């Protein structure tokens, strides 16, 4: 057990600096403001550059420029601020530049609220910016994992020459936990940054950083090259933690903070003799599809738990390929589900199974939004 106690937003900053990040451009927004504050204080000490930009849009375009000149660069924000950055993220992906983007999610849509949420799953995994592109998306569930994944994210960004997003939530950003900065993290052999616009010195042809292709044949070829990278990510990068799948009738799928709440519910249920499993995706793109193909025969249904209205359900359905019924329980708008809520939903589902009730029909999806009491289901 490490003996350094840190706040999540500080951990992100410290991990980035350890990973060699020497440029940060951002704009304050709750609940991630301690991160730019940390970078403002610490980056000058290591010869780095911090700029509080005039807006999120300016910040992401500074990232574009810094990355284009070969810098290890990061920006961060919270949900509405990440929405503002989408144009720049699409440009950076299009220009094949590396960078790390941290989203400390809060409730939305719009300005929403300042309490934790996971309702930017679509934004992170389905773009948000225009065009055929993907981001590698990490979803840490503890401050230790945050420390590790932020460092790994920089290598992955350089390796794939693509933006990498670390998707945290306000709870992870604000909470305190002991953290250790490990020396044994996997490091990658990285290609030289022979794309960087660093000045020709009259000795070579200029390097052009651009996402504009006016000949559609060339743009298509370019996109095919991008997608070859995304296919490689799907093979090499999926990360997932599984707990107690063997013998479980219900397997819960949850990521980040919510997975910890599920772990607490699992312990409560275990005391009652109810054994459930957990699939915790650590990468949201690429989604760990494989684990759903090899579930033990004991598993009869899946339960998705999120701090949103169920944005991850689409990926679970894709991975599940219609094999098992999928249910949902969650809170949204900045409300945090309790272990008791999750445990109650599990008991309900087990009861329903026993009487052949709410989960009839393979592939049926039953949504339950807390507070509405409504359930819609049926084959979709």
């Amino acid at each position: 057990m490490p003996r350094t106690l840190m706040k999540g937003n500080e951990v992100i900053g410290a991990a980035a600096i350890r990973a060699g990040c020497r440029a940060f451009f951002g704009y304050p927004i709750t609940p991630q403001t301690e991160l730019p504050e940390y970078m403002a204080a610490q980056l000058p000490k290591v010869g780095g550059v911090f700029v509080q930009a005039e807006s999120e849009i300016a910040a992401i375009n500074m990232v574009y420029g810094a990355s284009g000149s070969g810098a290890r660069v990061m920006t961060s924000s919270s949900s509405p601020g990440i929405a503002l950055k989408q144009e720049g993220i699409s440009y950076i992906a299009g220009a094949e530049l590396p960078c790390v983007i941290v989203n400390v999610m809060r409730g939305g849509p719009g300005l929403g609220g300042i309490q934790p949420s996971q309702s930017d799953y679509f934004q992170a995994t389905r773009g948000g910016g225009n065009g055929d592109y993907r981001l590698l998306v990490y979803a840490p569930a503890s401050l230790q994992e945050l420390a590790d994944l932020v460092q790994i994210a920089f290598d992955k960004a350089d390796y794939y020459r693509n933006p990498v997003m670390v998707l945290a939530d306000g709870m992870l950003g604000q909470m305190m936990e002991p953290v250790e900065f490990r020396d044994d993290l996997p490091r990658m052999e990285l290609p030289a940054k022979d794309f960087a616009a660093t000045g020709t010195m009259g000795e070579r042809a200029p390097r052009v950083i651009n996402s504009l292709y006016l000949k559609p044949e060339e743009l298509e070829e370019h996109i095919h090259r991008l997608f070859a990278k995304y296919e490689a990510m799907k093979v090499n990068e999926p990360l997932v933690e599984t707990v107690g799948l063997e013998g479980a009738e219900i397997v819960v799928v949850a990521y980040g903070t919510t997975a910890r709440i599920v772990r607490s519910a699992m312990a409560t249920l275990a005391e009652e003799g109810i054994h459930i499993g957990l699939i915790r995706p650590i990468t949201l793109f690429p989604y760990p599809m494989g684990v759903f193909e090899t579930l033990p025969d004991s598993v009869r249904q899946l339960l998705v738990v999120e701090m949103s209205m169920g944005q991850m359900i689409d990926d679970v359905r894709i991975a599940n390929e219609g094999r098992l019924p999928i249910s949902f329980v969650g809170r949204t708008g900045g409300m945090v589900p309790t272990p008791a809520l999750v445990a109650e939903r599990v008991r309900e589902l087990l009861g329903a199974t026993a009487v052949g009730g709410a989960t009839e029909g393979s592939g049926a999806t039953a949504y339950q939004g807390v507070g509405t009491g409504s359930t819609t289901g049926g084959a979709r």
Partner: protein
Amino acid sequence: MGTESVASTRHGAVRVVTGHYGSGKTEVSVSLAMRLAAQGVPVALADLDVVNPYFRSREQADLMTAAGIRVISSSLGHTITLDLPAVSPEVHIPLADPTCDVILDVGGNEVGVRVLAEFAADLRRRTAEVLLVVNAYRPETVDVAGVLHHLRAIEATSSLTVGGLISNTHVCRDTTVDDVVAGYRLTQAVSEQTGLPIRFVCGIPSALDGLADRLGAPVEGELLPIGLYLRDAWM
């Protein structure tokens, strides 16, 4: 543990709880308020944190109110989740009542104590003590120099003088007596250098067990068990 001395120290004490970000001011404040209330001491807790949006003592307003504590926070109510400098003027009321113990739970660092300027006149009229929470596991306060840096910054901004120290070194639920000892040693070193007394030594109850034996000496300051009131069971 010295369970009676908190009440008998000084009736109507005003304690201003300050410290570095994340040193544990809020857990200390809520735990102290709950303990005083359990002893029948009239106590008010004012959550003056206008820096942090999460993990503020007002989140436990219902629990504390039920225990008989007067809880004061934003003028917009306890449940509005905004980091606005909207402190309720109600804070002046218990500060004007010499029979009521008052705990001012202020935000972190020198930024957090700015709000105290509003209550400078009230504090002058009372026997108020500014306390500094020391947590040896926070990266900026691992040594005496780090603690003194924050102490001086807090004094300079608040125009108040720190009068006592609170030892609060921990790793949440995994805290052991060794952690409390390590933190106590640092607090002691700060105390020796500044002449400031140690008022409280905090820890989860299991980590305070046998502390004096481990130190081989009496503990300076009272043992204050931490209730982890702000930390949900799953954390």
